[in-house]
Every structure is written in structure tokens, then in C-alpha cells.
């Protein structure tokens, strides 16, 4: 095959093979996740010891070596932006989606391999631009990952670069989502009808629809904000805006709420983009390690689809405090309460799968089972935020930060890390070290709860988010000792990732080789391919004979999707 004669740069750098592209996304996203974590470490130092000089690198960052409010704001905005758009989504969708979806439907590659390659490189360029913004005069964007105007429009920093980077990232995402949907629907193998898709495929296809239809309004809004900053328009600048005592020179007539609506129209579905691939990964790991079919497969599918649709009509629950009237807020409160139903159903079906199961607590299974209570805490703490009455008290406090971090950090990231351990043998032919994995899991699990749990208490006491020194207020000073606990735990969490990173990069060469292509004895199609799969995935076309999770808990018999025989 001509593949073997391809030069290195074409085989590994500008590859159109979805497996190579998936790994490229994974490695790049890992770097951005660590960088985003590092930004937060700087912020957590300041929060625990306000005004203290930052060790080692303080003098390189600011004149005095201590955190300034401007730097804190930039770090906060960039932490959120990088983690979401350069870290979690590329990992969940770009890495896991790209690598697994073609394999799990029995295809030889994505439907549009060249488009796939382009979507990675556009993401890469977007990432470089975002990182370059740190070096621009005025510093990186500092108006929150939410970039609310008028501040984002009038600020004298690299907000314009942020917007341009977002255009690249959104484009990359759109190209990727078209690919995922067409691949899963058009290229599924013989016998692989929709109700035989692994849940991970359902999750990725739904996620792709969310990205496809929700991102464009943010792209439009970004263009409008760019116009405001670069061409002097007033899309988001109200008439009579006064800045530092002087009338701001613009035509006016705009409205900051327009930005908020268009932003959240994307950003709410975006949070389901963050969680759905993780739910899919957890379903795969749990069924394979509980040796049981998923409880309520159809219920899970319909819940995911319903969740996806509902995610488009809850967005203004992020805007309850913008002066909206009762009619509007009641509508969004209702839809927000309704959307909690499929979320609970999803969690319950996975939980019920564990009932009466023969559980194998491998490292991936540790992460997947931990996901369940962590996601539950994240989800439950969303309820007081979705109810307008309690949101009055909790909006823009640390309660919100605790809520969303629980779903994304010990939620999604735990699931994805479990997924790395689970599919590592598939893409490398070797297993990651089990002991290092257990150290990674237990340290991370304990530390991460100490980082985020106190936030609910602080938030309930009224401590605001985005403050670089909480002790300026009495109620903030009262909870300051929690900050020391949280920051210490954050450092522990950072160090806990070292065994993981080390494990990931060394097991490639020195990990224990797997004895067969299906070391977990799992049933979905990717395990029919060799570990690692060849360029075309399935040299002999694979055919699907049954449902995806045909494990028998009573007899212990396993019938993979791709095995024709009954015996």
C-alpha cells in the first residue's frame, strides 16, 4: 500500500488518517489543559495569599512580583477560554470523537479525511493566535471568557486577538461536526443500524449537532464585537456611555444584552458539548467493566437527544439578573428544570447498570464510577442556580464556580482520563501502568474535592467570583481560610497529574504489550480492529450482528457486536 512509502511529514504531521488526527488533537489538548491549569495555579496563589510575591516567576510577570488586578483578570479570562475551547472540547470531540467514531461504526476513516486534517490545523492556528495574545501590548483579553461588552469593546488589550482566535476555533469546530455526523450516518457498517450504535457514538453525533447549530450565532456576535472594536461601530455600546468620567466617542444605539443573548445561545449548548462525550465514554467503560448491558439503552438514547434539543432553549438562565421580567424568566426557569430530567435519567441508567454487576475495578472503571457522584453534585448544584429566586443570591458567586467545575473537572475530565486509560491499548498496543494509574486516581479524586467543595459554602456566604482579593469584604475575609485549603489542594492536584503524564508518554514505548486486540474483552466495533488498527481500520469489512453491550451477567458469556457466532 502506498501508505508505507509516505514521507514522515505526510504520515504524521499532515495526515488525513482520523487516528493520527485524533492523537494530534489529544496531545495538543493535553498541553492546553496543563497550561490552563497553570494559569489557575497562579490565581490560586493570589487568592490564598493576597498580595504575596509569586514564587520563582513573579518578577517576570509583574513589576513587584505580586499579582496585579489586571493580570488576575487576564488569567481568569484566559483560563476559562483555554480550558473550554482549547482543552476540553478538542479533547472530548477532536481526540475521542475523531479516533473512535469511525472505528465504532465500522468505517475505514471519516467521510471527509482532508477536511478532518484541515479542522485540526485550523484549531492549531487558532490556539497559536490565542497564546500569542499573552504577548500583545496591554496583555491578554481580560473580560472573562464571556467577553461581556461594554468592557470587552473598550478595553485596551488583546481582546481583538481573542475574537480572531475564536473565529478560527469555531471554524475548526464546524468542519469537524459536519464530518462526525456524515461519517456516523453514512458510513456505518453492514448491520449497524442506529439502535446498535454505542452510546458514545450517539453522544458524539448529538454533540456535533450542538456545535453545528449553536456556534454560528457566537461567530456572528464575534464579528459584531470585532466591528465595534476595529471599525468603531456601536452594536453593543449603548448611547451615553461614560468611561472614566468622559463620554465615550461612539454613535451609540447598541445594547450589551444583544451580546449576552447571542453569546449564551452558544455557550449553553457548549456546556452540553463539554459533558456529552464524557457521558458516552463513561457508558463504554462501565458496560465493559461491569460486564453487563447498559440498563435502558433506548431510554439513554432518547434522553441524550432530548437533552441536546432542550439545551438550545435554556440559555437565558445565565441572564436572570439582567432585569428580565417574570414572563421571560419563568419560561427559562421552566425549561431549565425540564432539562434536569434527561440529565438525571442519564445518570440513573448508568447507575442501574452497576446494580447486580460483576465489577472489575480497573483504573478506567475507577474514573468512570467516580464520574457518577461528581456529575451528580455538579448537576444538583445547578438547581438552585436554575431557580430564579435562589439565583438572586447565588449568581456571580463562588457557588456558580463550584457548580460548573464539578461537572467539567471531576466530571468530564475524569471521564476523559478514564477514557485515555481504557483506549490506550487500542491506539498503542500497550497498557498504561496500573499502579501509577491508581496513584493518579486516588490523589486527584481527594484533592479535586478539596478544591471545589468549599466553593459552595463560600458562594452561599456571598463571596463574589472574579475578585483578585476576597479579603476586602468582611464576608470574603471570613472565608479566607478556605482559600488556603483550596489552593493547597490545587497544588496537590497539579502534582497528581505527573504520574499520569509520565505514564501516558512512557507506556507508549515501555508499557506492557497486550496479548490480543481486545484486552478488556469488550463488545463494541473498535475492539474488532487490531491494536493499533492499520491505516484502513478493517482490512476485511466488519459486520454487526447484535446490540452493542451483549454481556451476560449470569453466564459471563460475552458476544461482541462483530462476532457472527452465537456460541
Amino acid at each position, binding site marked *: *500500500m*502506498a*501508505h508505507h512509502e509516505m514521507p514522515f511529514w505526510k504520515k504524521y504531521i499532515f495526515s*488525513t*488518517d482520523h487516528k493520527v488526527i485524533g492523537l494530534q488533537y489529544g496531545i495538543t489538548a493535553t498541553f492546553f489543559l496543563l497550561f490552563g491549569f497553570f494559569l489557575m495555579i497562579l490565581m490560586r496563589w493570589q487568592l490564598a495569599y493576597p498580595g504575596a510575591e509569586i514564587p520563582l516567576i513573579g518578577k517576570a510577570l509583574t513589576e513587584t512580583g505580586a499579582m496585579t488586578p489586571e493580570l488576575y483578570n487576564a488569567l481568569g479570562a484566559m483560563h476559562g477560554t483555554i480550558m473550554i475551547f482549547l482543552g476540553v472540547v478538542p479533547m472530548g470531540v477532536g481526540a475521542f470523537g475523531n479516533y473512535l467514531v469511525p472505528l465504532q461504526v465500522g*468505517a*475505514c*476513516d471519516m*467521510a*471527509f*479525511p482532508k477536511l478532518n486534517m484541515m479542522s485540526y490545523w485550523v484549531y492549531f492556528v487558532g490556539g497559536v493566535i490565542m497564546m500569542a495574545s499573552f504577548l500583545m501590548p496591554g496583555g491578554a483579553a481580560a473580560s472573562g471568557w464571556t467577553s461581556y461588552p461594554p468592557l470587552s469593546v473598550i478595553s485596551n488589550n488583546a481582546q481583538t486577538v481573542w475574537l480572531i482566535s475564536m473565529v478560527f476555533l469555531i471554524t475548526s469546530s*464546524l468542519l469537524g*461536526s*459536519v*464530518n462526525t*455526523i*456524515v461519517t456516523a*450516518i*453514512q*458510513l456505518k457498517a453492514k448491520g449497524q443500524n442506529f439502535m446498535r450504535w454505542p452510546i458514545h457514538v450517539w453522544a458524539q453525533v448529538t454533540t456535533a449537532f450542538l456545535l*453545528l*447549530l*449553536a*456556534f*454560528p*450565532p457566537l*461567530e*456572528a*456576535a464575534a*464579528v*459584531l464585537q470585532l*466591528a465595534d472594536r476595529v*471599525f*468603531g*461601530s*456601536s*452594536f453593543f455600546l449603548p448611547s451615553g456611555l461614560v468611561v472614566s468620567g468622559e463620554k465615550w466617542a*461612539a*454613535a451609540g*444605539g*447598541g*445594547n450589551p444584552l*444583544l451580546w449576552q443573548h*447571542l453569546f449564551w*445561545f452558544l455557550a449553553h449548548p457548549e456546556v452540553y458539548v463539554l459533558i456529552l462525550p464524557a457521558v458516552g465514554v463513561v457508558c463504554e467503560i462501565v458496560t465493559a467493566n461491569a460486564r453487563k448491558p447498559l440498563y435502558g439503552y433506548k431510554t439513554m438514547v432518547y434522553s441524550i437527544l432530548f437533552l441536546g434539543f432542550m439545551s438550545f432553549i435554556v440559555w437565558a438562565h445565565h441572564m436572570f439578573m439582567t432585569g428580565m421580567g417574570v414572563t421571560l424568566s419563568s419560561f427559562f426557569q421552566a425549561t431549565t428544570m425540564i432539562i434536569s430530567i434527561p440529565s438525571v435519567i442519564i445518570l440513573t441508567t448508568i447507575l442501574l447498570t452497576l446494580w447486580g454487576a460483576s465489577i472489575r475495578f480497573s483504573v478506567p472503571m475507577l474514573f468512570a464510577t467516580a464520574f457518577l457522584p461528581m456529575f451528580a453534585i455538579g448537576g444538583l448544584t445547578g438547581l438552585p442556580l436554575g431557580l430564579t429566586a435562589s439565583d438572586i443570591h447565588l449568581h456571580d458567586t463562588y457557588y456558580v464556580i463550584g457548580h460548573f467545575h464539578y461537572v467539567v473537572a471531576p466530571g468530564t475530565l475524569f471521564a476523559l482520563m478514564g477514557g485515555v486509560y481504557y483506549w490506550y491499548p487500542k491506539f498503542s498496543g500497550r497498557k498504561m501502568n496500573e499502579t501509577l494509574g491508581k496513584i493518579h486516581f486516588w490523589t486527584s479524586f481527594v484533592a479535586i474535592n478539596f478544591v471545589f467543595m468549599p466553593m459552595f459554602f463560600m458562594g452561599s456566604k456571598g463571596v463574589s467570583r472574579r475578585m483578585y482579593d476576597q479579603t476586602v469584604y468582611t464576608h470574603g475575609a471570613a472565608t479566607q481560610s478556605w482559600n488556603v485549603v483550596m489552593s493547597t489542594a490545587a497544588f496537590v492536584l497539579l502534582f497528581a497529574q505527573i504520574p499520569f503524564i509520565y505514564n501516558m508518554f512512557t507506556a507508549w514505548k515501555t508499557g506492557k504489550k497486550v496479548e490480543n486486540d481486545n484486552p478488556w474483552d469488550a463488545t463494541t466495533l473498535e475492539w474488532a480492529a487490531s491494536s493499533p488498527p492499520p*491505516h*484502513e481500520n478493517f482490512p476485511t469489512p466488519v459486520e454487526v450482528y447484535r446490540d452493542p453491550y451483549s454481556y451476560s451477567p449470569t453466564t459471563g458469556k460475552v458476544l461482541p457486536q462483530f462476532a457472527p457466532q452465537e456460541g
Partner: protein
Amino acid sequence: MAVHIPYIDKPNPVTGVTNAKLGIWLFLASEVMLFGALFSALITLRLGVNDWPHGYEVLNVPLATLNTVVLIFSSVTVVMAWAALKMNNLKQFKTYMSLTLLMSFIFLIVKAIEYGSKFSHGISPATSNFYAIYFVITGLHGLHIIGGIIVNAYLLGPGSKMWSVEPERFTGRIECAGLYWHFVDLVWIFLFPILYLL
């Protein structure tokens, strides 16, 4: 690469469409949401002020009407180009695609004249939100026209070599390029009255 991907020239028997056909419609769905958001912004801005000018008072309606006719005509020529391929007539395809490109350039030239006239009177997006949304929406639409020109020019030129080796796949490409072009026309069909005639 050597992987053989099915349904690039023949449709998938279950869905009845080729990969590219499904792909382009998904892309157009996202474009509906993009321009939809801009229309939503336009309505929001208009509802918020008392002094929104009438399009016919400040914009050049005859030129825009000409552009509307030009773009609609280009939509006909691009679908005729596809039909020509269906009838195995490469020469006719090239004629119609060239006409489509010619119409696209006329559209852009007229747009340049319109913009130029505004700029020479000192009018820019900073002047008022009416002009801001006018420039941004027509500007983004113009960028989409340029994108279409690049694709269509490629398909007329070096891309047409595919006709001699994979005629069905090439016809499919022209159909998809045509679908994109029709969408660009569709956006203008709404833009024209909303900006110029209200």
C-alpha cells in the same frame, strides 16, 4: 491516501444521499444560524432606536435591484451548469459556469461602487448602527460570494479535469457547489428588501 470511502459518487442506499450532499446541507444549516443571528441583531438594533432611516432614503435601490437580478440569474446559470453535466455536455457546463462567475464579479463590482460611494461621503460602520449592520451583513455576504467564486473558478478550471476520470463524482461536486451558491442567493433575497426597501 489509499482508504476507499464509500458513497462519494453513488448515494447511500439507506439515506439516499451521497456524503457530500449530506455534508453541504449540514453546512448550510449552520450558515442559516449564522445569518439568522445577524438578522436577529438587526431587528434588535432597529427596535431599540427611534431614528432608524428607511433603506430607500439612504441606500442605492436601483443598483441593489440590479444586483438582485444578477444574483438570481447566476443561480439559474449554476443549476444549468449542473444540468449540462447531467446531459453529458461539458462545453455547455463551462459556458454556464463562466456565466455564473461573470455574474458574481458584476455583483462584487456593483457592491464596490456602493461601498465606495458611502466611504467617499465619510460614511462608515462608525456613523450609525444602521450603516454598521449594513456594512457587516453585506460584507459577510460579500465574503461568502468571494468564497463561492474561488470554489466555482476552481471547478471550472483545474477541477474540471475530474470529469474525464470520475464524471459522477464531478457532477456531485457541481451540485454541492450549486447548493452553496443558491444559499448565498437566498440570503440576498432576504437582505435586499430588509436593508434597502424598508
